[in-house]
């Protein structure tokens, strides 16, 4: 567990620093949850968590995919498809408030997005196409498919429909999106760490050939992981759409795949596959969410968030590059005998 703690140290410190900046800028209210008049938990930080729920879901799926040396660029488009299917099903029905209808719409959307995820997995595992290429197809076509579902309109679900509760409701005063995100995080953590799935994933991502020779069914595992990723993206789309009460095929979940990859990398999972850290990813997501608020709280316009993210991507990418670290640290490390600094470094990080 020590290795895990070490991996999480930096993300936690960054998050604490961001929170500290916000507290300085806006006061302690930033972090302390308040109970709104309607009995729901509110406050700036709770809102960040609530808004980050879709990103968290996608980032969790992405973590598993990246652990297998893969990547899924289609999640933003799958998000839009999930949202479109659910909203369109609901508005096509005569009575949008029927509970059974909402359940059916949700089930339909999730089944479709799981199938899309499995398709990505089959392309990667069985056709041997590079993940970035295989998922690019749906990244390009996916939003078109979502448009097809909605007929080019933006379907608006009545506020009275129970569907909107997925995004706006609360259970035991805690917003439902937070519940869902927490449940999925727990479920995936249990699924990967209580079963052997996590270890086999890390094995397939860490050394595919050794895994094959050890007799691991890597194709089945790969398909499963992409399926889970698609499912997570679909669920994220549902929450996003329920929160807005509508599904925008063009802009729903736009660039969320990039945010998700960023969160995964901040959380300590390497893009090269192998060891993965679901909790780290969760912290990465909260960092991104907090960053967006921080920018506004320190008095910058919301447009700065793109620039800030660019800086974060740049910093993280460079810090993960051994060549960069070598280049920066070279003046500091001029010792006559430095046996295997790389190994020592790897063991420490």
């Amino acid at each position, binding site marked *: 567990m020590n290795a895990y703690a070490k991996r999480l140290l930096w993300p936690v410190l960054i998050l604490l620093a961001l929170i500290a900046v916000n507290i300085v800028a806006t006061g302690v209210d930033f972090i302390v949850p308040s109970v709104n008049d309607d009995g729901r938990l509110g406050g700036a930080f709770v809102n960040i968590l609530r808004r980050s729920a879709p990103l968290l879901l996608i980032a969790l799926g992405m973590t598993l995919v990246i652990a297998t040396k893969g990547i899924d660029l289609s999640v933003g488009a799958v998000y839009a498809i999930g949202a479109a299917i659910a909203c369109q099903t609901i508005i096509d029905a005569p009575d949008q408030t029927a509970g059974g209808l909402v359940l059916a719409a949700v089930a339909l959307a999730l089944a479709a997005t799981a199938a899309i995820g499995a398709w990505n997995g089959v392309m990667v595992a069985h056709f041997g196409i590079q993940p970035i290429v295989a998922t690019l197809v749906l990244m390009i076509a996916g939003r078109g498919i979502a448009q097809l579902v909605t007929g080019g309109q933006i379907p608006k679900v009545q506020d009275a429909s129970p569907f909107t509760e997925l995004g706006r409701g609360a259970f035991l005063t805690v917003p439902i999106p937070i519940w869902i995100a927490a449940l999925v995080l727990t479920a995936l953590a249990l699924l990967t760490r209580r079963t052997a799935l996590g270890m086999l994933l890390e*094995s397939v991502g860490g050394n595919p050939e050794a895994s094959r020779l050890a*007799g691991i069914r890597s194709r089945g595992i790969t398909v499963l992981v992409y399926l889970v990723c698609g499912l997570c993206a679909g669920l994220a789309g549902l929450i996003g759409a329920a929160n807005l009460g509508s599904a925008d095929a063009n802009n729903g979940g736009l660039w969320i795949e990039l945010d998700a990859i960023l969160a995964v990398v901040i959380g300590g999972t390497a893009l090269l596959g192998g060891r993965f850290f679901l909790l780290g990813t969760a912290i990465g997501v909260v960092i991104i969410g907090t960053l967006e608020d921080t920018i506004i709280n320190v008095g910058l316009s919301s447009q700065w968030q793109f620039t800030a993210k660019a800086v974060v991507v740049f910093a993280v990418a460079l810090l993960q590059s051994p060549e960069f670290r070598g280049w920066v640290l070279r003046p500091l490390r001029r010792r006559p005998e430095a046996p295997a600094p790389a190994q020592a470094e790897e063991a420490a990080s």
Partner: protein
Amino acid sequence: MPDAAPVRMTGIVKDFTGVRALDGVDLALRPGEIHAVMGENGAGKSTLIKVLTGVHGHDAGEILLDGEPVRFSGPKAAQAAGISTVYQEVNLTENLSVAENLLAGREPRLGPFINFRAMRRRATELLDGIGVDLNVAAPLGAYSIAVQQLVAIARAVDIEAKVLILDEPTSSLDRDEVEVLLGVMRRLAADGTALVFISHFLDQVYAVADRMTVLRNGALVGEWATADLPQNALIGHMLGREAAALEQIERTAAAHHVADGEPLVEAVGLGRKGSIAPYDLTVRRGEVVGLAGLLGSGRTETARLIAGADRADSGSLRFAGRRVGGHNPRTAAARGIAFCPENRKTEGLVGDLTVAENMILAMQASRGWARSVPPARRDKLVAAFIDKLGIRPADPDMPVRNLSGGNQQKVLLARWMLVEPKLLILDEPTRGIDVGAKADIQRLVAELSADGMAVLFVSAELDEVTRLSDRIAVLRDRELIAVLEAEADLTSEHIVDTIVAGGREP
């Protein structure tokens, strides 16, 4: 005579984080001479070449180029000084034309533009110079690997090479292609180039080399004129006698007489094109069968077909009396076949994972991901095997990449012993590990076979094979040429004689 050598390396020492890869090696290259560097895997041949061409720096000794000490910053600098290398894998790009590959970076130009006509003419001349006639406008990928290799040589020669290093250039060529390549080498030598030839095909080495330098375990064994070094002496020098204080492994009499045991593995005409000629091999329960042969003789390939790591394209395999179909590592493991591959790091272990995780991997794979090995049982098993095999440090949560080679090998062995296979296939399990771990592993093999497990044992060390095996299959040039019964008086010399005698006529 020494002054005739344009390149002279003396007392070269190279350490890799605690492992001495080269220990005081000398090499002198003379113009017009083909010099073979011989040795088994890990003997230090490629390290020596990499030191010469500046890929690695050296820790002691010196390299003299025309009498001047030099130290190249990399292959490019070596090339500029007239030392070119052609590697086993053709380092050209298949998507460009033959002419472009020959002249990339030095294309004849008209102003800023490439003059394709002049380029094709120049390329044709170059190929003519080594006696090859190709359509230089065709993409390189349209030609066989052999032709690509010749193009690589033509390119190297064009860079006014004083020294041309050929690192296993013939390993994927057929007989006729090899003849052409050897002809080109002779022609270059006649023109005054100094050539270094690395090959594991003895026939080829004897056909062209004027002189040989033999390395073993990073140390220089000696330098001979080819005429003074008969084949069996060479093989003896390369494989050596392990003088180290290995314990004599005492085999129980019962284990030694299993000739009447029921056959577990029956391979008939099993083969794979381009990797191993069809062979027949039987392994009985409780028997250790050794696979002996030089590097590249097909010993690994033989084992991989039985392990299901590669797909056979001819013959049939029966295991425990049943015909084996749809053979792959997973089904093989399910049948009770365990395979520890030759290359621990790239094919065996997952470096990121811990000792315990690596050990449990095969057992977990057979159970599927949903049925995790219960933590308590896992910890117990892992602790038992760490103890039994003496794995140090005895920390199950240590990432396996931080272990030494010998301990890594033991982790790999433990992975398969955990699933209690019927057949254990070990490909060079003792290569590159220290003497203590070597003895441990040899003792373990003896114990396992005494308990009734069949073992297929690949090793480059003849002493080891002779000591451990009940029967020895001898391979040469990708063919299984003989199966020897391990009688009490069988020695490694017998195997060497079999290898020498069994070869095709050069």
